[in-house]
């Protein structure tokens, strides 16, 4: 039985290597009960490895981890009962219909679709018109909704979603995050990973991960507030040349139609520099940093904590 502990997930110095290649190194973090926690990082950062360790699919080389107070090694059978897991790759039966998939997983978890229909109702209704269609023939967004339904059907206490929005269109992504908010209101702890930095703001707390190490763990607002200096967006007709010139001046990278530059002493000095280089058409404004800016900054400084 779960201990009386306010943390739903605890990772303690978890290290895992594949064939001597480190996947995650000394990762420690905790997720509070009922929290919507995001693991943010690019592909290959080690997010999926963490999920597999937490869902008892992989054994860590060292370190300990608990889910709902249960040890991932010792109590793996109990954990498998009380968590929902949606792997990064679409992992339902492509040759079974929506309905068959859902019924199969409901029975597998010892429950029925009707018993927990309330929890998945909002999501299921969107795909219900296609319930006799085979899962392999669904669009990316519908597949993810079905997978979420299947992961939720037994009313898990902790939900692990590995990159649920990868390969999904912008509208479906937004819908998906709305659904997660509603599930959170039902008291389910959700750990979600994503390579999209813009989704980080939708989480309560996030951990920024790169190459198997955590750069920072905090609320998105706190991470953004911790940005150490001023950030400017700048553009000109000759973007490529501008990027080259500014790299010599401060920390600069392309960001959409603008270049983002930081590590400069001030706006006037920056303007003077670009004038001197012969640009006449520059647009410059100070901006508040986003998560991606923070991520890039943390990469350069090698982690804040």
């Amino acid at each position, binding site marked *: 039985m779960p201990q009386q502990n306010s943390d739903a997930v605890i990772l303690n110095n978890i290290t895992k290597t594949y064939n001597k290649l480190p996947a995650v190194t000394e990762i420690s973090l905790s997720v509070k009960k009922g929290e919507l926690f995001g693991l943010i990082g690019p592909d290959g950062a080690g997010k999926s490895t963490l999920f597999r360790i937490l869902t008892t699919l992989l054994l860590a080389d060292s370190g300990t981890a608990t889910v709902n107070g249960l040890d991932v090694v010792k109590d*793996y059978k109990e954990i498998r009962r009380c968590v929902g897991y949606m792997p990064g790759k679409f992992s339902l039966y492509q040759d079974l219909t929506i309905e068959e998939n859902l019924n199969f997983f409901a029975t597998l978890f010892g429950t029925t679709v009707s018993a927990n229909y309330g929890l998945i109702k909002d999501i299921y209704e969107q795909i219900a018109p296609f319930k006799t269609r085979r899962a392999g023939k669904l669009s990316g967004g519908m597949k993810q909704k079905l997978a979420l339904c299947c992961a939720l059907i037994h009313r898990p206490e902790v939900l692990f979603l590995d990159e649920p929005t990868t390969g999904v269109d912008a509208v479906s992504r937004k819908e998906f995050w709305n659904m997660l908010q509603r599930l959170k209101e039902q008291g389910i702890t959700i750990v979600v990973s994503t390579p999209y930095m813009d989704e980080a703001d939708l989480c309560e707390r996030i951990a920024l991960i790169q190459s198997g190490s955590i750069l920072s763990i905090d609320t998105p607002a706190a991470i953004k507030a911790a940005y150490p200096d001023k950030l400017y967006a700048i553009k000109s007709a000759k973007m490529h040349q501008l990027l080259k010139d500014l790299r010599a001046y401060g920390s600069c990278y392309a960001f959409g139609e603008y270049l983002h530059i930081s590590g400069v002493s001030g706006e006037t000095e920056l303007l003077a520099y670009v004038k001197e280089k012969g640009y006449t058409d520059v647009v410059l404004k100070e901006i508040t940093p986003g998560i991606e800016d923070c991520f890039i900054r943390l990469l350069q400084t090698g982690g804040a904590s």
Partner: protein
Amino acid sequence: MKQFMVFVRKEFYHVFRDRRTLLILFGLPVMQILLFGYALTTEIKNAKIIVIDNAKDVNSEQLIAKIRASTYFSIVEGDDMGAAFRKGEIRCAVVFPPGFGNDLLHGNTAQIQIVADASDPNTAKTLTNYLTAIINDYQQSIQPMVTIPYQIQPVLRMLYNPALNGSMNFVPGVIALVLMIICTTLTSVSIVREKENGTMEILLVSPFNPTYVVLAKAVPYLVLSLLDFIIILLLSVFLLDMPVRGSLVLLFMESTLFIISCLSLGLLISSVARSQQIAMLMSMMGMMLPTILFTGFIFPLENMPLPLQLISNLIPSRWFYFIVKAVMLKGLGFGAVWKQTLILAGMTIVLLTISIKTFKTRLS
């Protein structure tokens, strides 16, 4: 239990919705039976021969008529024996010397030359035996009254298969072969597919006991393999005129045992193989060759060097082949095959235990 049944139902969905699986499941046995029953046979039918008749008398004509009447030979026109042999047009030649009938009736001894292409020694031997038999038969028919004072007459009786029907030997072998391939291939591929598709991850992160995953995978293929067995049996009885002399129930029980041992082997392969292709290759190639070589239905085991004979003991199909032959063709009961059954059961238990033990409850 309800979970188990749902799992089994899901497996049936997979099978019936995948054309490739269905083809292997039902196309392969039919094809194999027809192939081994009709095309691949060591029997000799209509072997082409040349008859060169230098005598052209009553006796030679009568003898030629007898040869022509047999289904073993078909006589080719021509007189250049050497050229026909070189071109491979004929297997055998029969040459009557001039004055054959005269020698036979008046000189009491006549000779016939039989020349056979011994580059295939078995066929050559068989053909010359057939011809000798026809000639002896003719000799007796022209002098029925003469009795040699001391005569040993061998009385031949071909037990179980008086017509020397070749498919009698093959069909039990094919049954073993087909069941072996189908069971191992389909089970191993179906488990590896779950791994490849990532569904295994979800199955593992569920309260469903991993051992049940293994068993739930095995049950549908056990049922389907038994279905296959019935198809093969029907085909061989009605198409190839195979007898089923022993107890059908016993035959079924023994087949079930053999199928379970093959399924366990498939499960074992699935825990080693990483992709469906590898699983397919391991079970198709890795099982087909040993089964063909060491079952004894193509190459007699007695002729093999001792090390190979010892290896053949490890092949489950070898024991099953013996059992099927004993029950189907000889009509023997359990008393005659209990030893083989025990060996097969032992193998099954070992394989099944290993495959359940090696089935991973985690990834990698």
